[in-house]
């Protein structure tokens, strides 16, 4: 089974929760948005959970309001969206401060 790694950048409250602006996650098999988020959940369970990334839902639905960007383009908000190994993704929770 092929190994992959994906570089993640965080913005807004996610960056604050993660206490870092970026992180590299690793996994094996097909690399999709849901498997990337599952890897993130494994690395930073409390921070990921604070944004609604939960083990029981990560394979079926993305957390509402979480945008996933690839090269400044919004990826389709589906768990099965393929991510190229080695890619850099930005995880951007929508914000609501006024």
């Amino acid at each position, binding site marked *: 089974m092929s190994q992959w790694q994906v570089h993640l950048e965080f*913005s807004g409250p996610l960056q604050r*929760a993660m206490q870092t602006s970026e992180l590299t996650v690793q996994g094996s098999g097909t690399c999709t948005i849901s498997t990337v988020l599952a890897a993130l959940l494994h690395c930073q369970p409390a921070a990921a959970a604070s944004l609604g990334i939960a083990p029981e839902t990560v394979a079926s639905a993305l957390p509402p*309001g979480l945008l996933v960007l690839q090269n400044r383009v919004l990826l389709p908000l589906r768990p099965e969206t393929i991510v190229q190994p080695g890619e850099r993704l930005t995880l951007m929770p929508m*914000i609501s*401060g006024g």
Partner: protein
Amino acid sequence: MTDTHTQTGDLTAEEAEIYGWQLDVTGFGCSGQQKLKQASVLISRVGGLGSAVAYELAAAGVGRLILAHAGDVQPSDLNRQLLMTHDGIGKPRIESARRRLLELNPRMDIIAVPENLCAENADRLVGLADCVVDAAPLFQERLAMNDAAERRGIPVVEAAMYELEASLTVIHPPHTLRFRDLVPDVPRGWTRRFPVFGAVSGSVGCMAAMETIKLLAGLGQPLKNRLLRIDLRLMQFETIQLTASE
């Protein structure tokens, strides 16, 4: 004595004098000013962000502002809510906002609503406006406002901030994606209290006001299907292309 209300085109002489410097903006002119004068804009909350929006729209000559904001002025409002004043602490926010705006522009009409947007009042309030500006701190309010605006075909300037970051876009289905395409439901983890400098909310508030002016006057290219992402910690601005969900 000069008659300051002598008509100059569609504007009074007083208006022509006050707005003279912006009348020179390419593509705006008297017709653009007249569009602002005839427009009604709803602003959901006049806190740190909405205060800046309201002040800039009042300065620009928008004819009517509908301001929706509940509650009394708190000491902790004063680091960012520029329409509130120290002597207004304990008094309704909406009255401070109205007073400050009329000091700047006594010619405008203000409908001051001491309520926050919610599912129950959204249709009524949105129905009063040609354009709405979303500056609310809670996603529940944003969803209610966008749902009502979509039903009425009214554009929404979506502005938000967090710490030293901000975002701005224009939602106007079917010309753009829906707000619920970005935020299908209330996200988990967002809290009512958020870290904020007034300079951040004010910065994005001014940009939201400019987007509103562009929409009303038909000026430039509003941020439709584009999300402006601002990071003032690094002073980086980037535009993200948005498309409707498949």
